[in-house]
């Protein structure tokens, strides 16, 4: 490999020599490769969080001319007394509870099935098809399913009303738009979206299991279910833990879907803590961003608490 570096730059060698100035330059040079990443990471991810934490202790309103005041925990106290905050957290949790099992179990099942396909071409075709939704950008998934679920002209209701006649035009299900079906419908869409990606995740995990483990178990007379439960499952536990915790995080903090499917109707199940935050920060009155900041911090802290709990529960034993 080294022969590809044909040219020699002897100048670079001299910079290696010691001396305080050279040392400092070396330290700076070492960080140069990380600098662009750090500028963006700190500027657009770390700083905003610190700034929002700061704002959450003030009565800052974006459109107001008056200076903001430091009001300590007043925003937090008000938010915690606001039924919308609690409704928002509960709605997000309700969605997560519906979404999480489906998005773990179905891909696991598919991965185990695809793992057994011995024809490489067939296996590749399966994986490519399953992964198609993963390369469709988020909003385009939502737009697609907004049509699928459309009350009048969506294909799902067309199937139920015109093809199977299970429902009539009057009582056909209203999948989206703030009905009780909205969150389950979005959960189904999300499972569909993540199906292939998570399957690939599990396939990678399955590929890492030494083949003699399940083989030995089978020779000992274990049934397929026993092989799965006692050999495959423990081996997949670390991947499953990462998936559960990461997906819990994304599910609790869903916002785009709710903006697109639900809007700002407070009675809608899609009005979760994220929408509550957005509504306060960019829609209502003078944009009470101090209050909105407190809402988002409460949501984030609640989420993190559960995630730590999940990490403890799913921690690999032994």
């Amino acid at each position, binding site marked *: *490999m*080294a022969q*590809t*570096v044909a040219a020699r*730059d002897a100048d*670079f060698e001299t910079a290696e020599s010691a001396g305080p100035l050279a040392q400092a330059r070396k*330290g700076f*040079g*070492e960080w140069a*490769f*990380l600098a*662009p990443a750090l500028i963006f*990471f700190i500027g*657009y*991810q*770390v*700083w*905003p*969080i610190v*700034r*929002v934490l700061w704002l959450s202790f003030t009565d800052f309103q974006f459109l107001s001319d008056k200076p903001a005041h430091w009001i300590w925990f007043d925003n937090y106290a008000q938010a915690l007394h606001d039924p919308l905050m609690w409704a928002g957290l509960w709605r997000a949790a309700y969605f997560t509870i519906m979404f999480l099992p489906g998005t773990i179990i*179905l891909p696991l099942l*598919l991965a185990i099935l695809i793992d*057994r396909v*011995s024809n*490489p*071409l067939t*296996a*590749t075709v399966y*994986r490519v*098809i*399953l992964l*198609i939704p993963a*390369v*469709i*950008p*988020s*909003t385009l998934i939502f737009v697609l*399913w907004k*049509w699928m679920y459309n009350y009048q002209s969506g*294909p799902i209701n*067309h199937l139920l009303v015109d093809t199977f006649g299970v429902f009539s035009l009057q009582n056909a299900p209203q999948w989206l738009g703030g009905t009780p079906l909205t969150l389950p419908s979005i959960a189904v869409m999300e499972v569909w979206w993540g199906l292939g990606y998570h399957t*690939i995740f599990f396939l*990678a995990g399955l590929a890492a299991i030494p*083949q003699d483990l399940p*083989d030995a178990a089978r020779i000992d007379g274990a049934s397929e279910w026993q092989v799965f439960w006692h050999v495959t499952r423990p081996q997949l536990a670390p991947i499953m833990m990462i998936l559960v*915790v990461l997906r819990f*995080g994304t599910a609790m*903090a869903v*916002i*785009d879907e709710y*903006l697109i499917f639900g809007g700002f109707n407070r009675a809608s199940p899609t009005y979760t803590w994220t929408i509550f*935050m957005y509504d306060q920060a*960019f829609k209502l009155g003078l944009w009470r961003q101090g209050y*909105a900041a407190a809402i988002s*911090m409460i*949501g*984030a802290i609640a989420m*993190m608490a559960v*995630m730590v709990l999940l990490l403890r529960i799913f921690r690999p034993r032994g």
Partner: protein
Amino acid sequence: MTLELDQSDARAGKGQDAGDQSGSTPVGHLVINFFNVVIILPLVWVLLMSVKSLPDAMQGNFWPKRFDFTHYAYVFQRIATLPVNLFNSVYVTAATVLITAAIAVLAGYALVHIRPRGAGVVLAMLFVSLYFPVRVVSLISIYETQHWLGLINHTAGLILPYITLQLVISILVMRSMFQLVPHEIIESAKIDGAGHLRTLWEVGLPMVRNGLVVIFIVNFVAAWGEYLLGVTLIDDEAKRTMPVVLAAAQGGQGQWAWPNLAAVYVIVVTPGIIAFTFAQKLFFKGLLEGALKG
């Protein structure tokens, strides 16, 4: 050609020489294909919708009685802002993908082969950020920053926050890719007199190609479909990106009649799927080598 079998794949060899009792069953294929159909059907429905005649579109039958291929031309001619919106999305996405990839390659290389003192702290912060709802919490402050920079209602301004959409993932992918490059190779290149930048470009980069494919795709998907920042930071129809326009379009009559909407959808969604189908071999390799270990 893209589906040719992949010998170096991690799956190859397993299951073939091993015991046959673990082979696939007809029921297994049936279940897999059921899900395949569930995945493909909605997409085929949109594709067909985009070439249906208007009466067929109203009727809702899956297969149209009469095809009408004029919708594609119509949407470009009659929806005034559409070409602009499409162009906005193209350049914002292209810039985001290229800049993020460059940043991630540099950072991934540095984290493995330069290791400045304190790099461990950076790495820990990157990992922690994966578990924090950064996107939601940071929104208020990002709006403030963009306002301060005078970038509200400037499409190009979206590039800055878009770079961070998948930056952490991209860095972590590149990091695990560079971990596969032995230290000795980097060292010997350096002994030969190459600086870090040259070593990275001539020795490192060719060895992390697959990871590069992964982060190209991941960042493309993120930027091409971004909604939250696009709708919050831009408030002018002509400056908006495609996802925001599509999400707001109410299907029905006139310019946004269902087939027109479907045509726009197909135009927007196809490039990604085609690119992925061609790159899938490298993508899966990269995914197995690096992406799934982070």
